């Protein structure tokens, strides 16, 4: 399998302090990777980096320009202004932005696509609802519908199932496995270990440094988990310059 994303000795951080430190590895095209680790392990930072929202302070993230242009990113508790008076239809339509652009009207084809996307997340008939009237779980499903519209080859999900009821999680997981069948690459930050074991064939265990990356069972071994738990969360203000090469 060709690599969809390759991390080469990647270091990401804020203010020169690393949050993700010297991580290397590849995400094969069409694979499903879970990113796990304790709080403050750099999981969200890694996704932000891959999404292009954070410039690496060391190493690099290699993707084809096509992938970089088209990847879809669902941030943690998306920074959506839920009070903005926008309909679910118009919100989901944003997913077609790349295809339609800023000026052309959304045609009939897109409208039908939006209906299908909302049906797929179990929100058929919600088109005319205003965003502020949705519950947290419904909003999360609307965000998934927008992801469907993006039709992206690589999809990054940051804790997509937090605060969502069991049934909805199952529905959304169904979507995720369909993405895999369609050959899309999925990278998801997750906390629910049983869910990771059941639905994600490979995992990356982060604790600022990479603890393990490979088949889920091996990565989530007892030894690795203990190593991850020992991670120091605090930033060391007096830290020296890192001289590790790779």
């Amino acid at each position, binding site marked *: 399998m060709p690599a969809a994303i390759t991390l080469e000795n990647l270091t990401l951080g804020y203010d020169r302090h690393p949050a993700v430190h010297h991580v290397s590895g590849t995400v094969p095209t069409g694979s499903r990777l879970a990113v796990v680790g304790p709080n403050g392990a750099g999981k969200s930072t890694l996704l932000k980096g891959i999404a292009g929202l954070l410039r690496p302070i060391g190493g690099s993230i290699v993707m084809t320009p096509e992938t970089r242009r088209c990847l879809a990113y669902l941030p943690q508790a998306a920074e*959506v202004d839920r009070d*903005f008076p*926008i309909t679910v239809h118009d919100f989901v339509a944003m997913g077609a932005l790349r295809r339609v652009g800023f000026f052309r009207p959304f045609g009939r084809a897109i409208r039908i696509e939006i209906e299908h996307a909302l049906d797929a997340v179990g929100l058929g008939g919600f088109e005319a609802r205003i965003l502020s009237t949705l519950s947290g779980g419904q909003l999360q499903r609307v965000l998934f519908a927008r992801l469907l519209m993006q039709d992206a080859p690589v999809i990054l999900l940051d804790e997509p199932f937090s605060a969502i009821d069991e049934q909805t999680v199952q529905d959304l997981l169904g979507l995720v496995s369909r993405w895999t069948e369609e050959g899309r690459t999925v990278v998801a930050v997750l906390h629910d270990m049983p869910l990771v074991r059941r639905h994600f064939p490979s995992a990356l265990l982060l604790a600022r440094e990479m603890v393990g990356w490979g088949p889920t069972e091996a990565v989530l071994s007892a030894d690795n988990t203990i190593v991850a738990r020992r991670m120091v969360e605090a930033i060391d203000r007096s830290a020296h310059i890192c001289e590790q090469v790779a």
Partner: protein
Amino acid sequence: MSAYDFLIGPFAEFSFMRRALAGILILSLGAAPIGVFLMLRRMSLIGDAMAHAILPGAAIGYMISGLSLGAMTAGGLVAGFVVAILAGLVARSTSLREDASLAAFYIVSLAAGVTLLSARGSNVDIFRVLFGSILGLDNETLLLMVAVTGLTLIALALLLRPMVLEFVDPIFLSTQSRIGPFVHLTFLGLVVLNLVGAFHALGTLLAVGILVLPAATARLWTVRLPAMLAFAVMDALTAGYLGLLLSYHAGLASGPTIILVAGAFYLISIIVGRAGGIVRQLRPRSHFRA
């Protein structure tokens, strides 16, 4: 007195009333939609600070060439854009306490502006700059307002989609396009343009009223953006006309009366507004089965 004499007579009889009406109607078409977006971006107060910040710029223009449209407009625009960019930086960097820095900023601007004006002008001039001279609009000022409103409506039409995106979900927009910062700055530019336009009619203290009040009123009646924009424009147009009429018949200052009428609409809407008014909240209508 017939209805005609009361409702139309003042405008038929006096050209300064016709100019005032034209001015406020033209302003409303652009300023009210901008006000709606200002409110939706939770920037109404920043708009207020920006309106005051125009004053020192306009005052410097006044010191150089007296009550000239060009100099005061140019000064106001420059000062407004400087503040818009500063306010943009403040809004984007979360480490600063926005409210405190803005309050400090606008009160200093106001003091600086009045000091500059009083160093050269008369009390009448200060009064004009603070509260506007809607009854003294000349052709050039009206043309300036037409230009401001025209530019605003064209820019809104072109940028509506990216603007809504930038306001609703800026992170998403930044993964899709690099247009976000451009949209933000263009929007701030439109705010400054409309404030400078309104400044000539309503003065530095009241200019922001024509942006903020119709928007807040519209929000109390509808939750849908197109309706909100239309409502705000209608509200501003109505307040402009009724305010002028009232000020004529009751012998009141015109600019403040227009803002007071818009304020009265707002107060009424707080009480009886269909979308979140007090009456609706205290006495909910009977609920549906599902």
